[in-house]
């Protein structure tokens, strides 16, 4: 270990050589290399975590840059994981960086988590957090939860020494479209930096046994007035889980996949030349950055203005970034079109970009 590099940290009473050694022996997996994942990885890497695994299947878009300061315009279109991996190696050649270029799925979660001591959640989807929760409970590893909404952030440490989990706090998976995401709400660039840094802090505390761990407590942070509140919660044994559930349990459609078709099926019928209208319900900036050539852009909030246009086509297909807004759009439009038949596409342009990059 390069003691000089970590001198100021080792000097810190309460951390010391022992803290540095524990960190150096730790294996931490960060799921997501976006707004939260970038600061989490940069700090854990700078501080000397022995092995840092990163899972992400996404590529860099221009609209990511304001909140993911490891990336610049020349990285656009590249896989996040390769760019971040390269930068982390430069930042600290002593870390063993393990890159997993994929999204966390029910089929790979258990394998990805194998051999890690701790997981940091830097995802941007609620269903993925349920999957992460289940996988961590089964593997008996703690995970650091962080999530954002507007100017607010949430933070907690789940499954710490068998303690309460995400399902104890939110037993019911919300329906698609119930909770808006950052693409819809927007986020101030620095906020994921604040919450991600707090996650890195909790990760180090868990590994080194420092202070009071945020287990059984949910921290609610408001950036506008600097109010932080903590809510205590208990373990709910009715939420115990022993195996990963079927894909449908975690998919964006959850229990309600009605009206949805898998992306592969859509691509086949499009290739076969079937006449239809593809409606991209994302915001105009997202649409302009990347879209299927034949798609039209009717943002989610303006769908109702475009009913007549949609009715001109016999079949309408709805697409978005990941499948959550298209499902929401489907529910909004159900029963409102006179003649056109309606479907939403499961998955989204995210999957297409991941395949083509």
């Amino acid at each position: 270990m390069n003691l000089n590099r970590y001198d100021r940290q080792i000097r810190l009473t309460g951390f010391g050589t022992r803290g540095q050694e524990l960190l150096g022996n730790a294996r931490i997996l960060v799921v997501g290399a976006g707004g939260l994942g970038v600061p989490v990885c940069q700090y854990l890497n700078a501080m000397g975590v022995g092995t840092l695994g990163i899972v992400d299947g996404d590529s860099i878009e221009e609209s990511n840059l304001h909140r993911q300061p490891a990336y610049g315009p020349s990285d656009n279109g590249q896989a996040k994981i390769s760019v971040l991996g390269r930068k982390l190696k430069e930042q600290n050649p002593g870390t063993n960086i393990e890159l997993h270029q994929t999204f966390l799925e029910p089929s790979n979660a258990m394998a990805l988590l194998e051999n890690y001591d701790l997981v940091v959640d830097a995802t941007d989807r609620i269903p993925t957090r349920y999957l992460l929760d289940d996988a961590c409970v089964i593997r008996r590893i703690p995970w650091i939860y962080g999530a954002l909404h507007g100017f607010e952030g949430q933070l907690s440490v789940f499954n710490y020494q068998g303690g309460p989990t995400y399902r104890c706090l939110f037993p019911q998976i919300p329906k698609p479209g119930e909770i808006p995401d950052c693409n819809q709400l927007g986020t101030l660039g620095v906020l994921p930096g604040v919450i991600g840094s707090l996650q890195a802090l909790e990760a180090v505390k868990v590994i080194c046994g420092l202070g009071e761990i945020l287990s059984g407590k949910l921290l609610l942070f408001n950036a506008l007035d600097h109010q932080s509140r903590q809510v205590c919660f208990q373990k709910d044994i009715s939420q115990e889980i022993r195996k990963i559930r079927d894909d449908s349990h975690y998919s964006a459609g959850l229990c309600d996949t009605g009206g949805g078709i898998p992306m592969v099926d859509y691509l086949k019928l499009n290739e076969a030349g079937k006449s239809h209208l593809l409606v991209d319900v994302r915001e105009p900036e997202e649409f302009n950055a990347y879209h299927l050539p034949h798609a039209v852009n009717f943002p989610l909030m303006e769908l109702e203005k475009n009913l007549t246009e949609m009715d001109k086509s016999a079949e309408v297909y709805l697409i978005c970034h990941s499948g959550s807004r298209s499902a929401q759009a489907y529910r909004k439009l159900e029963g409102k079109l006179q003649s056109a038949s309606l479907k939403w596409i499961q998955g989204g342009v995210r999957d297409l970009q991941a395949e083509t990059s």
Partner: protein
Amino acid sequence: MTVLLFGVTRDIVGSGSLEIPASEAKGLKTVEDLKTHLKKGYPGLKDLSSLAIAVNQSYASEGDPIQDTDEIALIPPVSGG
């Protein structure tokens, strides 16, 4: 009774907190009563199938009793990252 609103509940109600006057709070005996009362005033809350409630900063269940001096928090899961 003070109700603090987080995440999407803040957006639905249009404010970070609500004050329920003692006259109205009197009739609200449990967390469930409060939820029903709020959903009447703010129908958007009806769409939330997953919502944690804290009474005086402790997680509470539907049947837990509440008093008009309590501070209640509505905490939905949040998605962004």
